């Protein structure tokens, strides 16, 4: 049996909220991930800002698909 995952990747803010991790610690771990990958990994410590970013990102994806 194979299960298809159709939902988008959760944002890092959503992951932190779901597992009950503080934004401060999530930000430290994003910095560690940046070190390990050599790529910038960002996380918003302000919950509202993160949610706004997530909405904007989703809207951009929809707009891109419509083109």
């Amino acid at each position, binding site marked *: *049996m*194979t*299960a*298809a*995952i*159709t*939902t*988008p*990747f*959760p944002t*890092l803010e959503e*992951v*932190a909220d*779901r*597992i*009950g*991790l503080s934004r401060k*610690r*999530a930000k*430290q*771990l*994003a910095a*560690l*991930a940046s070190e*390990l*990958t050599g*790529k910038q*990994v960002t*996380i918003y410590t302000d919950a509202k800002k993160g949610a706004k970013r997530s909405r904007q990102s989703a809207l951009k994806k929809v707009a891109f698909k419509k083109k």
Partner: protein
Amino acid sequence: MPRPAVEKTSAFLNIPYDKQFENLYLAYIAGLTAFGLVPRATLEIPGGSRRLDRIFELIQTCGFSFHDLSRVQRDRSTPKTPRFNMPFELGLAVAWSKSGGRNDQVWFVLEAVDRRILKSLSDLNGTDVYVHGSQVKGVLRALSNALVRNVNQPTLQQMMSLYRKLRRAVPSILNNRGASSTFEARVFKDLVQLAASLSKDVSEP
């Protein structure tokens, strides 16, 4: 009983919590996050009288569950016993998925040895069991066989790379948390969050 909301990208991880299993534990976290899932485990649940209720609640909220039934041996500490938690939690997940039309919750069974489960848990005859051979690559390959993504399907190489980076970060996380084991709640949460951060390589190429 009121039904908790299901988080479709949460994956209940039902595995042995011991040092010998640590590499496979990290492989599960790396592999599941590479697929865009958030691993959840009973490690997050504190002990106490309501523990069983909270385990069942956690299972109910997860869209997926992965049950590793490879630890069939007795442990080393006295009194020597096998661990029944894994098959018990599989039973809870199966019962929940079959009750009241909650068949949108998907459960998977994994083992180390091919066909051994036909002896250890013959009730699962006819169920697909994914065999990982107690190997990190085996776990990642089993997850690749069980899951598929239409967009951003992770490759085995990407998952191995994520696993290696997660493995490399373990001493730093243990040190930061003042922990001696990766099977502590705070360390587990850190590993999940770090793996999600590292998986941005997969989800945003």
